[in-house]
């Protein structure tokens, strides 16, 4: 593999495709954690989104319904699960780590159950309609960038169009400031008359919704099938990326891009470098992440109130 192939249009496009679900699910988790809630059930939400998206699209697909409805269904599932998590962590003040892992186990099984009930055991090939690629007229013909950025599905375009401004809003507007303040010092926010509980509810529901939408990407825009293993794995990576990015948008996006690139590169290396066992290349993303995590350890400053439930009457 020569040097130019490391930046070929096809490889970079593969990187963008691999990074997209990490971007969506990771942004959801970033919002949740900036509000002070650690959601360890993220991977379960991602796989639930994949399952709901696949099942709804498959069931409605026979009626010619667009796969976008599957994404909307996944978002709805995320909202419901987000309300459950919010109630448990904000209202009941159950420990966030406990509820997160519980949600992970619950949703992992729920996802498979939904898929099995919706699709069942069939002797015919399961065909899940996927979103088609949309070429942006004019821009799609730009060398390299055209194929990388302007030949994506509607999902990809919407993800960038909606979430990039959202990340900007989190760090450049009063609304974003309030959210981050709740994650740092909820008592101060409460003293100013703002509803800490409502802000946390909104951040958790929004985060869970994005997590499920991120999961729906796999069957509806990437593989055309429900694959719980890779969805769960990507969910955990998305969680790690928030920490890797130190709860800041630019490092987070860099991490997303890096992981997407490594994911695409590992497949390319497995094909072109036959003398090395493919298992070594499969390790690449995780080895890299370990190195980076250790290197950035000293500089990671999480939101001060992360994992801590807010109790108005508590004496600090």
């Amino acid at each position: 593999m020569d040097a130019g192939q490391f930046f070929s249009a096809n490889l970079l496009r593969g990187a963008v495709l691999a990074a997209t679900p990490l971007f969506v699910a990771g942004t959801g988790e970033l919002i949740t954690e900036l509000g002070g809630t650690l959601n360890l059930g993220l991977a379960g939400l991602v796989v639930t989104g994949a399952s709901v998206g696949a099942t709804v699209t498959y069931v409605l697909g026979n009626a010619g319904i667009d796969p976008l409805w599957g994404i909307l269904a996944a978002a709805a599932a995320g909202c419901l699960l987000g309300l459950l998590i919010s109630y448990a962590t904000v209202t009941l003040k159950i420990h966030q780590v406990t509820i997160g892992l519980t949600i992970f186990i619950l949703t992992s099984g729920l996802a498979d159950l939904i898929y099995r009930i919706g699709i069942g055991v069939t002797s015919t090939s399961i065909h899940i309609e996927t979103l088609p690629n949309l070429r942006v007229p004019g821009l799609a013909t730009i060398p390299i960038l055209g194929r990388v950025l302007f030949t994506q599905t509607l999902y990809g375009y919407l993800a960038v169009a909606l979430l990039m401004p959202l990340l900007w809003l989190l760090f450049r507007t009063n609304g974003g400031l309030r959210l981050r303040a709740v994650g740092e010092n909820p008592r101060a926010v409460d003293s100013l008359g703002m509803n800490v509980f409502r802000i946390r509810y909104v951040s958790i529901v929004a985060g869970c919704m994005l997590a499920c939408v991120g999961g729906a990407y796999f069957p509806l825009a990437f593989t055309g099938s429900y694959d719980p293993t890779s969805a769960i794995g990507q969910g955990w990576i998305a969680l790690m990326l928030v920490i890797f990015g130190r709860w800041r948008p630019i490092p987070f996006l860099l991490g997303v891009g890096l992981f997407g690139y490594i994911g695409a590169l590992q497949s390319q290396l497995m094909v072109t470098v036959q003398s090395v066992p493919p298992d070594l290349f499969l390790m690449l993303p995780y080895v890299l992440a370990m190195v980076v995590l250790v290197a950035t350890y000293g500089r990671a400053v999480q939101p001060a109130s992360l994992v801590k439930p807010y109790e108005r009457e508590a004496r600090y």
Partner: protein
Amino acid sequence: MRKLAMVAGLVSLSLAAACSSGSGVKASGTSGSTSSTTGPSSSSNGVASPQVSVASGSASGASSPATATGGTKVAMLLTGAINDDDWNYVGYQALQQVKSQDHAETSYNENVGVADATEKANQFVSDGYKVVIFHGSELLNSAEKLAMADSDVTAIGQDATGALPNQAKNLWIVQLTFYPGEYALGYAAGLLANGGKACFISGLSVPSTISAANAALRGMKAANPSVQVAYTFTGDFDDATKGRQAAASMINDGCTSFVVHLNGAVPGVVQAIKDSGKDIPWLGLYTDKHGMDASHYVGGFEFNFSKAYTSIVSNIENGTRTGSYNLGSDISLTPLYNVTSAQNSAITKVFAAVQSGATKVPNLTSNVQVP
């Protein structure tokens, strides 16, 4: 606080690695990680030994296919989901056939990984199951362990080479004779590559798939000696994401036809082909996948696991608790699509030749050797 962030990061990373490599927590089990079988690497087709019976297309060891006594509790461990319309679905179908034909009480467990197979088998044994089928050659070690640990239970495992040396007296081996059929599929891929590159893609690198890869590559060259060939192993038969990424990489590398030896990951390959916008024909295994991709799917071959497992269970009930069953003659070619009548005829002819033994295909299980 920093420590919490670090620990959370490392924990999530470990879980992600475990899930993606296939040995972590999953909804109803775990998917498998790489596992090697203990069978010998050989170029011969099955090994006969004084202790086991070796037959082609049927199980020998019983003097007659005596009437099944029925009532045997038979369990099956599957490496993926039964609605994959692929490997696990045919295993599930076979189990249903065992249930109806042998009047057995059956149960199964899906998405069983290599790391969990022994434990799940023991759970079935403690529930009174006397026959445990390990449907996947990567589970062979667990089948052997079960056989050695409990002489009252009969395990059925799978291997590329057939009967094992020092095979336990309560262990049956189903020989996964992929290579003749894979040769024919390789021939078809070579024929349809149109002078480009014919490629083989599979999941785990185990003897049966190594043998399949070698056969497919030789078939490709037999169709067209000047065709370029390539192969890759994604590490997981059921990870559609890896399947798509690997197939996309191979297409970027010039692949113009595929032999796809995957299970749940097949849709990922289909998506990669669709995303490329190129007309890339592909062939698969176990079931007719025309409904999955009518534009590019050519065909494949199917194994008759139903016949294999019902025969073995009947033999077990009749007291023959060890042996080897060669699936070799129990494979059939699916209808062929997207080919001309001349291509159809050529592919069918090659398939018939390997089936009959007129064309000898070597069973090379140690490593992939590109011809």
